[in-house]
């Protein structure tokens, strides 16, 4: 695996692991609160089926686009997407936004699921558990598909990106099934910060290449861009912490654990 391949694998693996943790929390809440694991399972299967259709439709289309245009369009999209992640990551790390807390999300989803009315439709015994799982898998999965296709197509290595995604999702789901509890010990906020740095880095690099720029050092420029982006983001965290809301102490860059 080359240096770029390693960075590609790491970026996709981390991003997909984070999304999988969020999807697992939602499905666990649906199954636990409603005692409707079968309906939640149908929801997961339906969500995965829709994602498979989207991937099958978009995959060949994306890989058929000439590489220059692809890097321009997808690099730009990746950068906009990466800056969204970066914005949230910096706001969380500096105390301006609540840390992503899987335990709190799980408790909230449990409450909502317990209060919802039960109804069956067709072969689905619990429609609420089905739709909650379906939406969770589809929405989080869309980000996985987006990241795999954009990274994979731009790096000419969709199989490697897909492998990283599959390993991440299987790992997270296996742990989720084993402990049947939200994966709150996963350092999700730190992972999100790292993913934001990588999305932004690759977005800058590929976007500029798509706009006909030649980077000094070619691919080696990534080794400079990534640490510079990370240091810049950390500097912004430090500056924003000074202006953090008074009641909430500035949190460390890690998941809150109970």
């Amino acid at each position: 695996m080359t240096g770029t391949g390693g960075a590609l694998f790491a970026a996709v693996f981390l991003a997909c692991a984070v999304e999988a943790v969020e999807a697992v929390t939602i499905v666990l809440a649906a199954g636990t609160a409603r005692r409707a694991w079968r309906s939640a399972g149908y929801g997961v299967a339906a969500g995965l089926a829709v994602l498979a259709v989207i991937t099958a439709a978009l995959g060949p289309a994306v890989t058929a686009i000439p590489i220059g245009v692809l890097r321009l369009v997808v690099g730009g999209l990746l950068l906009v997407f990466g800056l969204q992640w970066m914005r949230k990551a910096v706001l969380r790390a500096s105390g301006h936004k609540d840390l992503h807390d899987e335990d709190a999300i799980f408790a909230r989803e449990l409450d909502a699921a317990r209060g919802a009315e039960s109804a069956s439709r067709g072969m689905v015994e619990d429609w609420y558990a089905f739709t909650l799982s379906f939406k969770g898998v589809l929405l989080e999965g869309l980000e996985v598909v987006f990241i795999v296709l954009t990274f994979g197509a731009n790096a000419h290595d969709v199989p490697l990106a897909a492998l990283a995604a599959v390993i991440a999702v299987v790992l997270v789901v296996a742990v989720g099934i084993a402990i049947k509890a939200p994966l709150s010990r996963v350092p999700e906020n730190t992972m999100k910060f790292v993913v934001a740095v990588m999305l932004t880095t690759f977005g800058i690099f590929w976007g500029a290449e798509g706009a006909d720029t030649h980077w000094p050092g070619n691919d080696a420029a990534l080794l400079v861009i990534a640490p510079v982006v990370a240091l810049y983001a950390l500097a912004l965290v430090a500056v924003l912490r000074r202006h953090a809301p008074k009641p909430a102490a500035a949190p460390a860059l890690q998941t809150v654990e109970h």
Partner: protein
Amino acid sequence: MRTITQRLRAFGAFWYDFVVGDDWRVAVVVIVALAATYGVSKTSVASWWIMPLAVALILPASLWRARKK
């Protein structure tokens, strides 16, 4: 008919939120920076610095706006 319009609007809103997110100005700056990079790359001047500069400017601006909210 109204339902179809509402669904189309919701579909568009979902994709807008998915890609563009909370701050549309970030997307605008990225597009402008890409266009500037392309334009400068056609001259004899190096253009690789434009995208990093755009990120260096828009990220704190977007953060400051979010902080004020």
